[in-house]
């Protein structure tokens, strides 16, 4: 069943000029901020708590709780994470390019709620057009009185910096992002002790929120947390922007009420994914970005619900769903995802730096027909040395979660398609004739 809840973060995207100040102001832009400024910061935070807004970056941590963990201190920074790089995820790209003012308004609201006077929006460098539009929108927000000293004549002042990334997946990890924002290599920090809320940017307490998360804030303030919480089910409240890609007829973004739609609906409904490209069957799908373990067709009827997906052994993650059909070689798919992690490993921890390359080489060898049967056990044991137990949620021998994300596709592939792996080994190459 698909609900027809009104969109929240994409509510303006029907207009071609949704990114402009004129359109934004004509569609209630900055009303949420004006209302927030009439409330106490704690009241704004309380509305977000009531909304049970889960972080939209991938980890799904409740935004309100994240704010309340902030150590009380004279300095607090807000950093908005727009370094979206999880493969198959393109929702933040959409929001940056199409509704930058909404991000800025949400940022100001969040800064107000946590008492930050300096905020940063870290925009993925490859979003050149989006970055340009964010800068434009930032300039306009200052002109509009929504940024700078005494916002809308209130006592609240905020300086906002739009910061460009420069191309490194790892900078989506919040502590790597902070390092990068400090002008360094994107090496994640060790937690504990470097939890951003305690020791974040320049060692000061810092909140890091995702772009989609803050984009929800104007609506929540305007309509109340309860209205948001009324959407969805259980802990998965509100709507969420899902990114659908891979072997589907209508790849794209869909803002859907949480929990109320199933993967099957998303992939097959004519108004959504429109079915498998070429008309074949779903062989497997990734429910939440390539760090997530894969699901098979038997999981298609799961709802788009954070807890349900978690219980089933994977994660809704960044809300990006990749569909593999029966033309897909799973060895090649696992190899390509592993290759991604090898190229994006920051190189700090030995298991991730060396393990990712080793795994990629084994997978490539199997795919090219030079595999050995013992390679499957070897793959699993190398994975085990990066993520002991190869289970979900994962353990790790590394500083950050990039390491334990590597085994997801390999373990899924071998567990679900062992025969296909063996066919590559015994048949001297890909039975489907791919490379």
């Amino acid at each position, binding site marked *: 069943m698909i609900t027809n809840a009104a969109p929240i973060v994409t509510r303006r995207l029907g207009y071609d000029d949704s990114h402009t100040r004129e359109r934004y102001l004509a569609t209630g832009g900055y009303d949420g901020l004006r209302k927030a400024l009439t409330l106490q910061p704690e009241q704004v935070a309380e509305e977000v708590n009531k909304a049970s807004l889960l972080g939209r970056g991938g980890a799904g941590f409740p935004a309100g709780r994240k704010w309340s963990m902030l150590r009380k201190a004279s*300095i607090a920074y807000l950093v908005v994470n727009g370094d979206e*790089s*999880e*493969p*198959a*995820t*393109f929702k*933040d790209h959409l929001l940056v390019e199409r509704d930058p003012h909404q991000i800025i308004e949400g940022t100001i609201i969040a800064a107000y709620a946590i008492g930050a*006077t*300096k905020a940063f929006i870290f925009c*993925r*460098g*490859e*979003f*050149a*057009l989006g*970055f*340009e539009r964010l*800068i434009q929108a*930032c*300039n306009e927000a*200052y*002109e509009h009185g929504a940024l*700078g*000293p005494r916002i809308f004549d209130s006592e609240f*002042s*905020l*300086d*906002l*910096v*739009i*910061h*460009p*990334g*420069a*191309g*490194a*997946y790892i900078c989506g990890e919040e502590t790597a992002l902070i390092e990068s*924002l*400090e*002008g*360094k*290599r*994107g090496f994640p920090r060790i937690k504990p002790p470097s939890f951003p809320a305690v020791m974040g940017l*320049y060692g*000061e307490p810092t909140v890091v929120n995702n772009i989609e998360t803050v984009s929800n804030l104007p609506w929540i303030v305007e309509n109340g947390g309860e209205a948001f919480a009324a959407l969805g089910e259980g802990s998965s409240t509100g709507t969420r922007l899902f*990114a659908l*890609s*891979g072997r589907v007829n209508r*790849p794209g*973004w869909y803002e859907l009420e949480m929990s109320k739609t199933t993967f099957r609906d998303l992939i097959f409904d004519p108004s959504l994914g429109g079915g498998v*490209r070429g008309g074949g069957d779903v062989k497997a799908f990734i429910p939440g970005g*390539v760090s997530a373990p894969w699901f098979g067709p038997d999981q298609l009827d799961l709802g788009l619900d954070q807890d349900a997906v978690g219980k089933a052994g994977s994660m809704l993650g960044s809300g*990006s769903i990749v569909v593999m059909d029966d033309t897909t070689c799973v060895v*090649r*798919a696992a190899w*390509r995802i592993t290759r*991604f992690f090898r*190229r*994006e490993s920051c190189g700090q921890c030995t298991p991730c730096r060396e393990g990712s390359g080793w795994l990629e080489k084994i997978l490539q060898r199997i795919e090219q027909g030079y595999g050995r049967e013992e390679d499957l056990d070897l793959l699993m044991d190398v994975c085990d040395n990066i993520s002991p137990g190869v289970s979900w949620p994962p353990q790790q021998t590394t500083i950050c979660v990039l390491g334990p994300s590597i085994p997801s596709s390999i373990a899924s592939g071998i567990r679900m398609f062992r025969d296909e792996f063996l066919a590559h080994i015994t048949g001297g190459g890909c039975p489907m004739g791919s490379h």
Partner: protein
Amino acid sequence: MAHLSEENLVRARRLAEIYPKSRSALIPLCHLAQAQDGYLSEEAMEDIAELCGVSPAEVYGTASFYDMLHTEPVGRYVVAVCTNIACMLNGAYEVLEHAESSLGIGVGQTTDDGLFTIEDAECLAGCDLAPCVQVNHRFFGPLDAAGFDGLVADLRSGALADIVPAHGVLSRVDRSNGLEVDPVGDVAR
């Protein structure tokens, strides 16, 4: 300090000032230098080191961590073909192979006329356009071989000049507000 132009030096100093600590401007300054030169020259990195209060080796070490920052010259158009999972499932490698053969260069190489450099890119967050390609970080897709040829022809003819600036230019808009007023003061400086 000599390499950045007068105008860019003014912009660079402003950038260094909007952050509580000037080292934070390192990456924005690298982008600025790339916008000027098309790549990150050694002379520019020495300027950046001085502006950020770090050593040139640290600028080089930091810049080389990031895919978008090129410490060697690249073509006027850097064509990044995404081959990650969503694009691969829709024929990205075929597009990449076509790009290589039609331009006569391999990944990481630049055509003799200095126009094109090909990159084998990780996910660019354009999966709804799969297989997608970025030229100087502007999106194109879905593309097949013919679409790729059309794109190259348009780039050569200048038909896309409004959409695709020369390599290195990230934003054609500068931050213009809030620079003189710092409500925070020098809290963390």
